[in-house]
C-alpha cells in the first residue's frame, strides 16, 4: 500500500522536510560481503560505447534545422549597459535572432560579475553567431567592483544569511585549556572544468519544450524550466543519455538553457547553446575561496575542550553558503564548539556546489589545525584523532559509523613513516600525513525504477536518472541482475529521458547509488515475485520453494527451468516490476567516514612538492562495484591533488576579471602528477539504511586530500602550510617562517 509520510531529505548537508509517498520497503537486507554480482568488480556497462566514440553526448546531437548560439557576456566585473543595439548584428549573414536584457530572465543589463549573460545571437553556424556577436553594440558604464571578502562581510553584503552555531561554553573552555592553538587558513577558488562544457539544445513542439542538456539532474531541470516558463512540468521533456562530467556544476538549468529556449521560441527552430571553455571558466560556478580563522583548545593529553571557527565564504555574486564549518561541528567529540559562517557577496562569478562543497575546504583548516595541536603537544596525529573520537555528535545517533576501523586499517600505512622519512635525500625531505573525513552521502527518497522482463528472459531497468560518469548505471544493472538471478549481460538499462521513465534522484551529494539502488532492487524484486507466481502455476509448485538463480527458475525440491521458458509463454507480454526508495532512518545521521594517509617529498630549496603515495580508507556502507568504486576514489584523490597543489582561478586584483580561462593557464593534474593510490573500502553494510545498506562515494575521497598532504609536508619539513594551493611560493614562505620560529626558540630563554 502506498504510504504518505513526512520525512527529512538531505542533499549536501542541507535538510528539508518533505511529503512523500513511499511503498513498504519490505525486502530483507542482503548479508554482508560479495554476492553473485553485487560486490564483485564489473566493467561499466556503457564503457564500450564511450570508448569506441559511439556514445552520443549532448555535444554530439545534431537536430535538423538546428541553430547555434553565441552569448554576449559581460567583460567587466561590475557594469551597467547604458545602450545596446542589435541592428548591425541582425544584418549579419546567417543570423536568425538576437535577444538582450528583458528578453529572458537570465539576461541582465547590470552584470555583477565578469561572464554574466547580457545578450545572445542565434545563427546558422556557431562561427556566424560568434561573428555577429562582435556587431552587437554596447555602451557600458563601468562600476567599481567589490572583491575583498572581509570588506563585504564588514559592509554586511552577503549572499543569504550569515549562520552561527554554538554548543557548550567555548570562551570558558578555552580559558581553562592547557594549550590553545590559533591559525588562519585560506583556500582558493577552483573550477569544475568538466570536459563537456555546459550546453543545451531546446526545441519547441507546439506548447511543449524538449530540452537536451548535459545535466546532473534531469528532473530538477524539468521543474526549473517549467516553473520559469510557466509550463506544466510534463510539457517539458528533459533528455541526457550520456554526460561528460559535472562535479556539482550541472545541477541547474543555467543561463544557456533559457537562452536556447527563448531563441528557439522566436525562430521556430531547435537551438543549441554550448559554452566555450572560456565561458565555462567564468559563468558555470566554482568552489569558492574561503578564509578560516580557527582556534582549538585542548588538555595536555590532547583531549579537545573547545573548537572555534570564524569562516568567510567568498561566495561571489550568487550561489549559496557551503557548510565550511561542517567538519568542525561534526568530526570530533568536543563539547564546546562555536562557528560563524559569512557568505560574502562579491563581484566575482557565483559559486556552485563542487564535490563535497564546504567540507573539502573546512577539512583542510580543521585537520591541519589538529596536527599543529598534536605537534605542540608532541602527540601522534593518529592517536590524537582516536582520543577525540565521536561516538555521537548532538542528539542524533549515527545510522552507522566505522571510522575507528578506518583508523585501525590506516595503521599499516601510518607505520611507513619512519621508512619514508629515512628516504629523505639532499634537499628532498620526505614525510607522511593523515586526515579524517566526514561527509553526507545517504541519499533519500523519492526515487523510482521499473524493471521489465521480456519473453527472451532479458530484463531492462527503466529509470529517468542520469549517469554523469560515476558508474551508477553499472551499479543499478548489477543490483537488478543480483535480485533477478540473471547474469549481468542479460540486464539492460534505459535512462536519461524524463518522458520515458520514472522520477530519479539528482546525481549530487553522493546520493545517486544510495537513492536509486534500493528502488531498483525493489523493482527487480517485484518482477521476480511475479515470475515466481507464474512459475508456481506453470510447474505446479509452491511459490515458497521457487527462486531465481543463474537465469533459471530453481525449485528447492529439485528441478529447474530456464527463465525464458516460463516468461516465453507470455509471447509479447511482459512482466513489469516497480520499485520505490524507502525513507531514511528517522532521527539518525547518515554519514560517510574515512581517513587518508599521504606521503610527500618536498624540495626545500625550490619548494617543489611531489605527492608519492596516498592510501584511502573509507566507510561508505556496502560496495556495489569494487572496480568502479576504486576509480571514484582515485578520481577524487587526483582532483584533490589539483586542488591542493596546482589549481587556482586567478583574478586581476584591480578589475576582478578572470586571468585563468583556458586549460593552459588553469592547471589540472596530468598523468605525470599522479601518485601511487591504495584504496581500501570497509564494505560494511549500514544496517539502518534501506534494503542495500549502501552510501555514496562520489565525494568522500576528495574531502581529506589537501589536509593529508599539508600534514605530510609538516612531517617532512616542520613547516606549517596554511594556504591553498600550496605553490612553491607558499611552500618557501612556510619554510622561512618555520626557520625563523626555530631560531626564535633557540634564542629564547628556556621555557619555564
Amino acid at each position: 500500500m502506498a504510504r504518505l509520510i513526512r520525512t527529512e531529505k538531505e542533499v549536501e548537508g542541507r535538510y528539508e522536510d518533505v511529503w512523500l509517498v513511499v511503498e513498504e520497503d519490505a525486502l530483507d537486507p542482503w548479508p554482508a560481503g560479495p554476492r553473485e554480482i553485487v560486490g564483485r568488480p564489473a566493467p561499466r556497462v556503457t564503457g564500450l560505447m564511450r570508448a569506441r566514440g559511439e556514445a552520443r553526448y549532448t555535444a554530439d546531437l545534431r537536430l535538423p534545422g538546428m541553430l547555434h548560439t553565441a552569448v554576449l557576456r559581460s567583460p567587466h566585473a561590475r557594469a551597467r549597459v547604458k545602450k545596446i543595439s542589435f541592428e548591425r548584428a541582425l544584418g549579419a549573414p546567417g543570423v536568425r535572432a538576437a535577444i538582450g536584457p528583458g528578453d529572458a530572465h537570465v539576461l541582465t543589463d547590470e552584470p555583477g560579475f565578469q561572464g554574466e549573460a547580457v545578450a545572445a545571437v542565434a545563427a546558422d553556424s556557431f562561427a556566424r553567431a560568434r561573428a555577429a556577436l562582435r556587431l552587437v553594440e554596447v555602451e557600458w558604464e563601468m562600476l567599481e567592483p567589490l572583491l575583498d571578502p572581509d570588506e563585504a562581510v564588514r559592509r554586511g553584503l552577503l549572499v543569504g544569511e550569515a549562520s552561527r552555531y554554538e554548543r557548550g561554553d567555548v570562551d570558558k573552555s578555552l580559558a581553562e585549556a592547557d594549550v590553545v592553538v590559533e591559525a588562519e587558513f585560506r583556500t582558493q577558488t577552483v573550477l569544475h572544468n568538466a570536459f563537456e562544457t555546459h550546453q543545451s539544445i531546446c526545441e519547441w513542439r507546439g506548447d511543449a519544450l524538449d530540452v537536451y542538456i548535459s545535466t546532473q539532474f534531469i528532473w530538477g531541470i524539468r521543474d526549473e524550466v517549467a516553473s520559469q516558463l510557466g509550463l506544466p512540468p510534463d510539457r517539458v521533456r528533459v533528455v541526457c543519455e550520456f554526460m561528460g562530467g559535472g562535479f556539482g556544476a550541472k545541477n541547474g538549468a543555467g543561463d544557456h538553457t533559457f537562452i536556447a529556449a527563448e531563441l528557439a521560441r522566436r525562430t521556430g527552430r531547435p537551438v543549441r547553446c554550448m559554452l566555450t571553455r572560456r565561458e565555462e571558466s567564468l559563468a558555470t560556478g566554482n568552489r569558492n575561496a574561503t578564509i578560516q580563522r580557527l582556534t582549538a583548545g585542548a588538555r595536555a593529553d590532547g583531549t579537545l575542550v573547545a573548537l572555534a571557527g570564524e569562516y568567510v565564504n567568498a561566495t561571489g555574486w550568487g550561489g549559496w553558503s557551503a557548510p565550511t564549518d561542517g567538519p568542525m561541528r561534526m568530526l570530533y567529540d568536543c563539547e564546546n564548539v562555536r562557528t560563524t559562517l559569512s557568505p560574502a557577496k562579491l563581484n566575482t562569478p557565483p559559486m556552485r556546489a563542487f564535490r563535497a562543497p564546504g567540507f573539502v575546504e573546512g577539512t583542510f583548516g580543521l585537520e591541519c589545525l589538529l596536527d599543529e595541536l598534536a605537534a605542540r603537544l608532541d602527540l601522534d596525529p593518529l592517536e590524537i584523532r582516536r582520543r577525540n573520537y565521536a561516538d555521537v555528535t548532538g542528539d542524533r545517533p549515527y545510522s552507522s559509523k566505522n571510522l575507528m576501523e578506518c583508523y585501525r586499517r590506516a595503521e599499516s600505512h601510518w607505520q611507513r613513516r619512519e621508512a619514508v622519512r629515512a628516504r629523505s635525500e639532499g634537499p628532498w625531505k620526505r614525510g607522511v600525513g593523515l586526515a579524517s573525513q566526514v561527509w553526507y552521502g545517504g541519499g533519500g527518497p523519492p526515487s523510482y525504477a521499473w524493471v521489465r522482463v521480456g519473453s527472451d528472459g532479458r530484463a531492462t531497468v527503466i529509470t529517468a536518472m542520469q549517469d554523469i560518469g560515476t558508474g551508477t548505471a553499472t551499479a543499478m544493472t548489477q543490483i537488478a541482475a543480483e535480485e533477478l538471478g540473471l547474469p549481468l549481460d542479460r540486464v539492460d538499462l534505459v535512462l536519461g529521458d524524463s518522458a520515458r521513465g520514472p522520477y530519479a534522484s539528482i546525481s549530487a551529494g553522493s546520493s545517486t547509488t544510495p537513492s536509486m539502488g534500493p528502488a531498483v532492487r525493489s523493482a527487480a524484486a517485484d518482477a521476480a515475485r511475479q515470475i515466481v507466481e507464474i512459475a508456481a502455476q506453470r510447474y505446479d509448485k509452491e511459490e515458497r520453494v521457487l527462486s531465481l538463480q543463474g537465469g533459471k527458475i530453481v525449485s528447492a525440491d529439485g528441478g529447474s527451468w530456464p527463465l525464458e521458458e516460463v516468461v516465453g509463454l507470455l509471447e509479447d507480454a511482459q512482466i513489469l516490476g516497480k520499485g520505490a526508495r524507502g525513507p531514511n532512518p528517522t532521527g539518525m545521521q547518515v554519514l560517510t567516514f574515512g581517513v587518508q594517509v599521504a606521503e610527500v617529498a618536498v624540495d626545500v630549496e625550490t619548494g617543489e612538492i611531489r605527492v608519492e603515495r596516498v592510501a584511502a580508507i573509507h566507510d561508505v556502507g556496502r560496495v556495489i562495484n569494487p572496480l568502479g568504486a576504486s576509480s571514484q576514489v582515485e578520481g577524487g584523490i587526483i582532483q584533490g591533488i589539483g586542488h591542493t597543489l596546482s589549481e587556482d582561478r586567478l583574478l586581476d586584483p584591480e578589475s576582478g576579471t578572470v586571468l585563468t580561462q583556458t586549460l593552459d593557464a588553469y592547471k589540472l593534474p596530468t598523468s605525470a602528477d599522479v601518485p601511487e593510490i591504495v584504496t581500501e573500502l570497509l564494505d560494511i553494510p549500514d544496517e539502518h539504511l534501506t534494503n542495500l545498506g549502501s552510501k555514496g562515494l562520489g565525494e568522500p575521497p576528495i574531502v581529506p586530500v589537501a589536509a593529508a598532504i599539508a600534514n605530510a609536508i609538516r612531517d617532512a619539513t616542520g613547516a606549517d602550510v596554511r594556504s591553498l594551493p600550496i605553490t612553491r611560493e607558499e611552500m618557501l614562505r612556510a619554510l622561512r617562517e618555520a626557520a625563523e620560529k626555530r631560531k626564535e626558540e633557540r634564542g629564547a630563554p628556556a621555557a619555564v
Partner: protein
Amino acid sequence: MIELRLNGGSYEVEAPVGTTLADALRDDLGLTGTKIACAKGHCGACTVLLDGVPVYSCITLVHTVGEREVTTIEGLREHPLVDAFVRSDALQCGFCTPGQIVAASALVESNPHPSSEEIRHGMAGNLCRCGTYPKIEEAIATWQD
C-alpha cells in the same frame, strides 16, 4: 571541396578556409567520436592521428592535412586498446576517452611495452578531469592481454 584520406577511405569535405579538422570531422562527416573540450589544443580530447602521428584536431586546419592519412577513434574501434580501457575501467564520464585511446595507440605503435614512466609522460598531453589516469596506465600496460 577538399579530399580527406580518412580511416582507410576517401571523403570529400566542403569546408570554408579556417575550418578545423575537428569541426570537419564532427560537423561535416558526423564522426562525433572525436570530442572537443577546450578547442585550444590544451587538453587532447580531440586527438587524431595524421600518418600515425597524434595531433590535436581542434587546432589543425583541415586544409593543411593534404595527403596525410587521418585516423580517428572510428578507425580504431577494433584496436585491442578499446577493450583494455573498458576492462581496466579506464574511463569515467568518457568524454576524453576517444582522444586518450587514439594517443595511446600511437604510443604502443612506437613502443609496444612502455614502462610506467613512459606511459605517464607519453600520455601527459591528454587530460582527464575525472582522474582516470591510474586506470589508463593499467590499460596501456596490459593492452596486449
